[in-house]
């Protein structure tokens, strides 16, 4: 525990209960007051293969995943051979005594004596929990919360497996991995990026969501579906992504704040709908949880390679905004913000996240995800100006008063063709010009609401690390490691990647001796966008595109 953090990596085959074990261990750690960052890496299969669930845990705040492993929990023998190279100096491998594995840092656990095979993941929870000093009662409660209500019989058997393992856990090795205990731990939530997006959407006033399942976005919608009844929203599984986005547009046209969630391939199918939302000036939030492409790519891994896809999606020209949350808390706030922005500027607004953040559990303080006022929908049809109602009335801001079909006697007409102010199809080319200008006008308004990038560190650094989205924590930790070596480093992180407002960041570029972009893609898409918008050429790039998230170690390796 050199840096005061412990990195636990659980490895095994799909179907061994590895995620349940990881989830329960993470939950118990959060309830005991520790900070965590979870990284899940899994193969696109239901059984077999090799999956991992890594929990980096600390008494202090942790913000990034780590590569070197202190505690390797091997649910199969392959995990040991695959991850031996990742072990830190004082590490320990927790392994089934039945496996044929050698080494002097092994803790061989007689899982078969402790529990039936199907409960060995819970026995592993007991062993690992004891090693790090978790309270048995607290772990038992986590188990009960997880299994209790649905399957009391299962909960009972799990609790027996846990108790047997805790009793077995040997005293002699316990001390080296024991986390300092926290008295009266703060009450915090354990939440991953997708859960936070769902909660942010609910709190922001979402009323309609349509989707077609696609990893790693699906759990956003599953979380919404669970709450649909009591939150008064409709979640519909569409026949395909094209239907999903068109349904959301239809619902939004009729007044329900709407969202779709997908990943690259599904989003590619939605793209004509993006253009439709823009042309009909229909508010819509589009969540794209990135995974490596092209095509089916690596379906369950992570990447940041769809910035350009999202930025240029949809034929024709129209304004948009793209948020890229860097933390679980930002997933919550930016989703809610996206709903409001979509309503205010009446068009498509994007949230660009990725598999790493989607599945990354963190400890979140309730005070950090307090709801802001939800999107407001006015049903007032008194003050709409000219009669008959013109859905696309030309205004100074480009934003026209919005009414909803059936909610007043006014008729609401929208068209994907170029249209007159009253929404009807036109080929009058002077109307075309004023409508193009009207739509672009809304871009000025979006520009005025851009979240400036987050600058941290030295004012005139030797090196400025530029990043966006989910790599925020890894980049900030890499910078602080460099600072501890007396290097003058700063970080500039974009949680909104479009529009770019040069006034927000150019001075930081100019003050830095060297600017480096850190991105989870193969070509440096943000760096290219910055150059296009400002002329500033970020020459040095540290890029990762092996399907795993940037880590502090991978960034330092890349910097050389």
């Amino acid at each position, binding site marked *: 525990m050199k840096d005061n953090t412990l990195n636990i990596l659980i490895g095994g085959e799909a179907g061994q209960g590895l995620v349940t074990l990881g989830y329960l261990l993470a939950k118990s750690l959060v309830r005991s007051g520790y900070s965590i960052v979870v990284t899940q890496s899994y193969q696109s299969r239901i059984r077999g293969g090799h999956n991992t669930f890594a929990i980096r845990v600390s008494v202090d705040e942790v913000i990034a995943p780590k590569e070197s492993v202190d505690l390797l929990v091997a649910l199969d023998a392959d995990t040991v051979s695959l991850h031996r190279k990742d072990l830190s100096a004082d590490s320990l491998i927790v392994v089934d005594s039945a496996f044929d594995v050698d080494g002097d840092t092994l803790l061989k656990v007689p899982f078969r004596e402790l529990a039936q095979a199907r409960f060995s993941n819970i026995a592993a929870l007991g062993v690992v929990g004891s090693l790090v000093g978790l309270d048995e009662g607290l772990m038992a409660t986590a188990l009960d919360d997880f299994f209790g209500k649905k399957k009391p019989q299962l909960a009972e058997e799990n609790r027996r497996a846990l108790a047997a393992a805790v009793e077995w856990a040997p005293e002699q090795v316990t001390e080296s991995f024991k986390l300092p205990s926290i008295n009266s731990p703060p009450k915090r939530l354990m939440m991953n990026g997708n859960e936070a997006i769902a909660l942010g959407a609910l709190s922001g006033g979402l009323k309609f969501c349509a989707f077609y399942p696609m990893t790693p976005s699906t759990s956003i919608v599953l979380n919404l579906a669970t709450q649909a009844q009591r939150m008064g929203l409709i979640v519909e599984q569409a026949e395909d992504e094209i239907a999903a986005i068109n349904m959301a547009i239809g619902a939004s046209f009729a007044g329900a704040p709407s969202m779709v969630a997908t990943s690259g391939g599904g989003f590619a199918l939605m793209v004509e709908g993006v253009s439709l939302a823009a042309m009909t000036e229909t508010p819509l939030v589009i969540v794209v949880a990135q995974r490596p492409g092209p095509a089916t790519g690596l379906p369950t891994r992570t990447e940041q390679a769809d910035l350009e896809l999202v930025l240029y999606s949809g034929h024709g020209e129209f304004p948009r905004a793209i948020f890229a949350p860097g933390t679980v808390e930002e997933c919550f706030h930016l989703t809610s913000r996206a709903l409001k922005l979509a309503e205010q500027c009446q068009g498509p607004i994007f949230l660009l996240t990725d598999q790493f953040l989607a599945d990354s559990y963190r400890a979140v303080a309730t005070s950090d995800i307090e709801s802001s006022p939800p999107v407001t929908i006015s049903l007032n049809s008194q003050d709409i100006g000219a009669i008959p109602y013109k859905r696309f009335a030309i205004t100074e801001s480009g934003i026209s008063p919005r009414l909803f*079909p059936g909610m007043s006697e006014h008729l609401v007409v929208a*068209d994907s063709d170029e249209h007159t102010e009253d929404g009807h199809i036109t080929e009058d080319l002077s109307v075309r010009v004023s409508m193009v200008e009207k739509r672009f006008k809304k871009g000025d308004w979006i520009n005025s609401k851009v979240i400036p990038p987050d600058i941290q560190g030295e004012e005139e650094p030797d090196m400025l690390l530029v990043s966006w989205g989910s790599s925020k924590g890894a980049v900030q930790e890499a910078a602080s490691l460099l600072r501890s070596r007396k290097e003058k480093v700063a970080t500039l992180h974009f949680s909104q990647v479009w529009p770019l407002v040069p006034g927000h960041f150019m001075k930081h570029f100019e003050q830095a001796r060297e600017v480096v972009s850190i991105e989870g893609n193969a070509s440096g898409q943000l760096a290219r966008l910055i150059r296009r918008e400002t002329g500033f050429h970020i020459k040095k790039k540290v890029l990762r595109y092996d399907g795993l998230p940037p880590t502090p170690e991978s960034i330092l390796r890349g910097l050389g």
Partner: protein
Amino acid sequence: MTGIDSEDKMITVEDYGDYETAWCPGCGNFSILKAVKQALVASQLKPHEVLFVSGIGQAAKSPHYLNANLFNGLHGRSLPVATGAKLANPTLTVIVESGDGCNYGEGGNHFLAAIRRNLDVTLLVHDNQVYGLTKGQASPTTQEGFVTKAQPEGVISAPFNPIAVAVAMQAGFVARGFAGEIDHLSELIQQGIAHRGIALVDVLQPCVSFNKVTTFAWYKDRCKPLAPTHDPTDWEKAMKVARQWGDEIPIGIIYRNERPSFDEQFPVLDQGPLVGQDVDQETIKTIMEGYM
């Protein structure tokens, strides 16, 4: 109707307006538009109570030529837009109006899904067996052997039979009309609107510019109203009728059932349209506590 005060007066065809169109003279669309207006008047629906959703094609322009709410979206995608709008506000009378290419070609998947859902919309398909707007290519319902500039040796694929597919899937309401029988067609549309669930009204229609085979006269000779003895609730008989095509083409209500409609099955809609509903922040707090 929610939140609207207006004195109850009889709705007349004037309420739905009279507009100049972009159609070819003699187009079957004129008769269909007339039948639609007649059906709306007969249903005594006020223009603001009706939402038309259309796609792209000559047929999809129809709702621009009457007074009502309208979302004229993308080619093939009117059913999904209608699904979203109807779920957001089930008090709307939703009519999807587009052509055979739009609904059966580009939007084929949505056609199947909308029938499965039994969404409460009237699906009015102007079926002229040809792509008019793009100047005469084959559509999904074009007869085999039909020669076009895109299919110079004649169409090879078998035509899609929307009626047979809809009946096979036990769609809520399946009817075929003919643009040359305006009153008959209007009656079908009116019944389709009244039906709670999906109501397909496939309208046979000549295309004066690009279809020289199935002309007005061709249809006039063949389209015959179903005998009053036809029982549309008899699925097996309906399947037989659905496959009739050639010297005699049956028009009328071919099949119907009373399966509950999609939107009736969302309890969250019991409190009214989704538009303007509050956000329950207290419940959100409770939900958040579940993550502790």
